[in-house]
């Protein structure tokens, strides 16, 4: 089990004069599945992007800590695995080339065995050498899970994880979420009742307006 924690202190975000949410406080630690619930436009994607260090807060603070202390923003990407419908991988390369490029840029070992296993789980092993632009939207979504898991991050952030997926795809994703949540923090932002039912703790953004 990891000794990783994410602590939010009076987190608020506005775009111009439009308030998205205010005064969000939470402390998610070690492992488990944490849900972010809210209707369309409530700020779920904005909140997960703030947690991942991709956008800044308007006020308040979010801090990631592990056994060595607080993680600086420059290194945060090494601890985060991220899946969302708006994440786009390099379509001019094959899935296998994408994963190889990501490993090289991250400076991690390209673990072929582990990646083949993930590709097999997500039913992509026989299409790994095809260009990503030839994939269907569901296949692209499944590949994003392999991308998120490749570097064994401490936190997995899934924004609408089951969008574009068929029933088989959803089953695989739910299984992975359950397995991974035993060892790390899994955050799910979704409207889907089935996704939210997996969570140990749910944060409803409607309570922070």
């Amino acid at each position: 089990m990891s000794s990783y924690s994410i602590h939010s202190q009076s987190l608020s975000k506005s775009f111009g004069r439009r308030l998205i949410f205010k005064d969000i406080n939470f402390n998610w630690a070690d492992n488990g599945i944490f849900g972010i619930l809210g209707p369309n436009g409530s700020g779920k994607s904005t909140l997960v992007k703030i947690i991942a260090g991709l956008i800044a807060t308007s006020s308040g603070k979010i801090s990631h800590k592990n056994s060595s202390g607080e993680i600086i923003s420059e290194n945060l990407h090494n601890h985060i695995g991220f899946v969302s419908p708006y994440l786009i991988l390099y379509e001019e390369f094959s899935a296998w080339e994408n994963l190889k490029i990501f490993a090289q840029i991250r400076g991690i070992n390209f673990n072929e065995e582990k990646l083949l296993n993930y590709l097999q789980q997500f039913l992509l092993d026989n299409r790994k050498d095809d260009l990503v632009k030839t994939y269907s939207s569901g296949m692209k979504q499944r590949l994003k899970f392999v991308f998120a898991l490749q570097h064994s991050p401490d936190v997995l952030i899934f924004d609408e994880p089951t969008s574009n997926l068929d029933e088989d795809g959803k089953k695989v994703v739910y299984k992975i979420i359950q397995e991974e949540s035993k060892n790390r923090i899994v955050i799910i932002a979704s409207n889907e009742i089935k996704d939210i039912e997996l969570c140990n703790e749910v944060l409803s953004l409607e309570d922070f307006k």
Partner: protein
Amino acid sequence: MIAKPFALFKKDFHSELKTRYAINSLAMFIIVAISVILFSIGSETINENLTGGLFWVIIFFTAMSGLARAFVSEEERGTTLTLQLIASSSTVFSGKFIFNLILVFCVNILITLLYSVFFEKFVVQNLVLFIVTFILGNIGLASASTIIAAIIAKAGAKGTLYPVLSFPILLPLILTCVQLTLFSFDDVNFVEAQVELAIVVGYDIIMITVSYLLFEFIWKD
């Protein structure tokens, strides 16, 4: 330390070979620009001052037509988020800088070769001074273009904004490089050109340092 930026450079290089985002527009621009100048001067011979000036004008506008692609292509394809998730801001800037530096060197070597073939007044007397000017000028051009490309990538009117924003930033570099090129035509020695050389070295150091310091604020929303 260099492995991650180099991996990003390799990714951009292979992506460029597959998509031809920058290479085609750069090659077309060079051919069109040199052809237009040759047609407009006809059989007349332009003096060496004008030759040196036009040489850097072509280099400036060629850079404007291709170097913004480093970040604009990521933004247009929607892969900026992916890049933010796999690399630190310093890795991204270094990788893009290496890509732009190599691109600018290759393109400007081609321009120099074509120029020396078609313009009879393009005769370099002090070759070492010319090469030093060329190298320092290209480093300054690549560093300034990279940070400006990162700024304009998130803007709406990218095509217009890039040359407009680049012009005042690159003007001191271009003017000094024009002067140094003319010195190399006139066989001026290094001692007499030391002020201009110091300006270009200073420009390069300031531009690279400031770019590294500011890039994280530009890169993250």
